[in-house]
């Protein structure tokens, strides 16, 4: 049952991915600018013979639907074209900037889930008490304070006033990055066994990750609280208490499990807005990630790079939603049948 559930979710994710590729292909085909000449230097682009040769070489003289399959083939081989701005293959740009963003987004998400769900549980157990009131303010603040404002305050308090955390970059000036395995400096430095480098990577990561996690914390706190309160009124919770189970077992095994489905639902949406937030956070913290790359590509109308980023983000998003779906299936056996 679980196997069939996973298979069906994988299938629909694949269909979605093809759809997104189709859209990005149509975008590339429709937008002004010749894909052939953009691959050539200025001199060569003036020579019709060379242009024709390139067109034939890349299949650009074929009908559009054939081009789509060529495009699909290129994608599968990892050929996303060449960035006009950096003059490097888009894929290698993504491989360079992607892990930095992934590291930021993953840590921010983990922080947000632990803090948001944890505080949500606390708020629900103290419903309408003083702690709950205070947490309501926290949640409201996280959701409604603009992220750039939060970032500026955080930098001012923790870097300018008190030099607790560095305010920009991924490592101290002069430090060389660990040899690339995942591209995430925290992981790679650990893999290399270099603890000083790890400490530096972490201290650079904390501030931007916290700022990035704030809206998600607010959202998860609110959802966890209300979902917990709803489940607390269920008879199966009373039944668990009537069995004489310790309080923490009742709360974590029975109530939280019952409350988690709506929380997971909002997790996918919250992650999407977190991705949008990375663009701002990376700018403010000088974090060399996909957000910063996308920002500069867009301001230079660097089409291959923009399409590459779009595909990258779309694939990340599909993957996250796939994970969310799997979490549903693991947590709620009734969903596996669907």
């Amino acid at each position: 049952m679980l196997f069939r559930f996973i298979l069906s979710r994988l299938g629909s994710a694949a269909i979605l991915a093809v759809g997104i590729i189709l859209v990005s292909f149509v975008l590339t085909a429709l937008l002004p600018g010749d894909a052939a000449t953009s691959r050539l230097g200025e001199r060569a682009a003036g020579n019709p013979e060379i242009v024709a040769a390139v067109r034939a070489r890349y299949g650009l003289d074929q009908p559009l639907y054939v081009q789509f399959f060529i495009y699909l083939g290129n994608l599968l081989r990892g050929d996303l074209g060449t960035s006009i701005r950096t003059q490097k293959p888009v894929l290698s740009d993504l491989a360079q900037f992607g892990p930095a963003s992934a590291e930021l987004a993953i840590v921010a998400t983990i922080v947000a889930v632990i803090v948001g769900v944890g505080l949500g549980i606390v708020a629900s157990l103290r419903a309408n008490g003083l702690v709950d009131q205070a947490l309501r303010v926290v949640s409201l603040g996280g959701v409604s304070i603009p992220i750039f404002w939060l970032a500026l305050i955080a930098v001012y308090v923790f870097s300018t006033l008190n030099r607790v955390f560095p305010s920009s970059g991924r490592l101290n000036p002069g430090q060389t990055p660990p040899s690339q395995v995942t591209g995430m400096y925290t992981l790679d430095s650990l893999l290399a066994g270099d603890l000083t480098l790890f400490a530096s990577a972490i201290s650079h990561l904390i501030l931007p990750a916290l700022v990035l996690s704030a809206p998600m914390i607010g959202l998860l706190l609110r959802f966890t609280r209300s979902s917990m309160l709803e489940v607390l009124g269920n008879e199966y919770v009373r039944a668990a208490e009537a069995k004489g189970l310790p309080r923490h077992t009742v709360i974590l095994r029975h109530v939280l499990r019952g409350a988690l489905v709506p929380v997971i639902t909002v997790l996918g949406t919250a992650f999407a807005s977190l991705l949008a937030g990375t663009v701002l956070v990376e700018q403010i913290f000088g974090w060399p990630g996909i957000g910063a790359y996308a920002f500069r590509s867009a301001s230079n109308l660097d089409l291959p790079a923009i399409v590459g980023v779009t595909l990258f983000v779309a694939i990340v998003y599909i993957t996250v939603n796939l994970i969310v779906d799997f979490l549903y299936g693991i947590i709620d056996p009734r969903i596996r049948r669907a």
Partner: protein
Amino acid sequence: MSLLEVDNLSIHLRGGRTLVESVSLTVNAGEIVGIAGESGSGKTVTAMTSLGFLPAGATATGEVRIDGADMLSMRPKQLQAVRGSDVAMVFQDPMTSLHPMLNIGTQLTEHLRVHQGLKRKQAWARAAELLELVRLPDPHSALSAFPHRFSGGMRQRIAIAMALACGPKLLIADEITTALDVTVQAGILDLLDRLRRETGMAVVFITHDLAVMNVVADRLYVMYGGRMAENGSISQVLNSTRHPYTRALIDALPEGAALGKALVPIPGEAATPDRRPSGCAFHPRCVFAVDSCRADVPRLRELEDGHLAACAVDPFGALPDRAQLLDIALATPKDPRVAS
């Protein structure tokens, strides 16, 4: 000393509403004691105190003792030790009382492991035995399944197995057949009766259905408006009824009352904590009511050995009951000398 002693229990909510007033009841080891009364009469609230549960924000006076230990003054840890091990509970609706996202094995074993310190393997083996005990088909594969796989009747069997896991001395069964089909009800009642005989545990059996009660209970308490109306042995209360409310409940039973047939409501509305009439709470619906019934709360009085009722008028007290009348009517013409 009785197994359960509820002594002069009153439960008040903030804002002055009274859920239960001066209720006393006892349950002896191995006995099935019924609590009857319309919805809202305080059956569940009373029974839950024997597990140390009070409604949120409520305060209680009086005592509730299990084996002499007062449940109302216990600390949370002490309560946890009693719940699920000495006293267990089966709830009304098996669709909502089992956790939909935990498998049956986990739900059957978690308290076993806490109370008896069993290892996972031993606990799961015990769980399979319990499912056999309640006659659930294919107990071993049931352990890894989730509640949605089972029908209401099967779920209620699972809930009963859960309650029996630690071998409780007292089982609280709160309307456990109300949510089930009639045919399924009979199976559950048979099961309860067999388990009681095999394990010797006492049962507090709550239902508003006197026909079911008549089959199941040894002794019966009838509650109305949060107060005790009448109690005694099942034959005292149902065959020599002394309280007009009990009488009304019996008269409202459908003719030839089959198991589980719906109760035809007594005219007027049942008293609730929000709207409880003055004096005897039953007076607006009582055909025997006199002026004093509106003013004074009638005291619960012992009318014959172990048979108590709270009615100031006691309209059936002067008369021989129906059964006796019938005996007299049948006996007299045949042989007048025997009757005297």
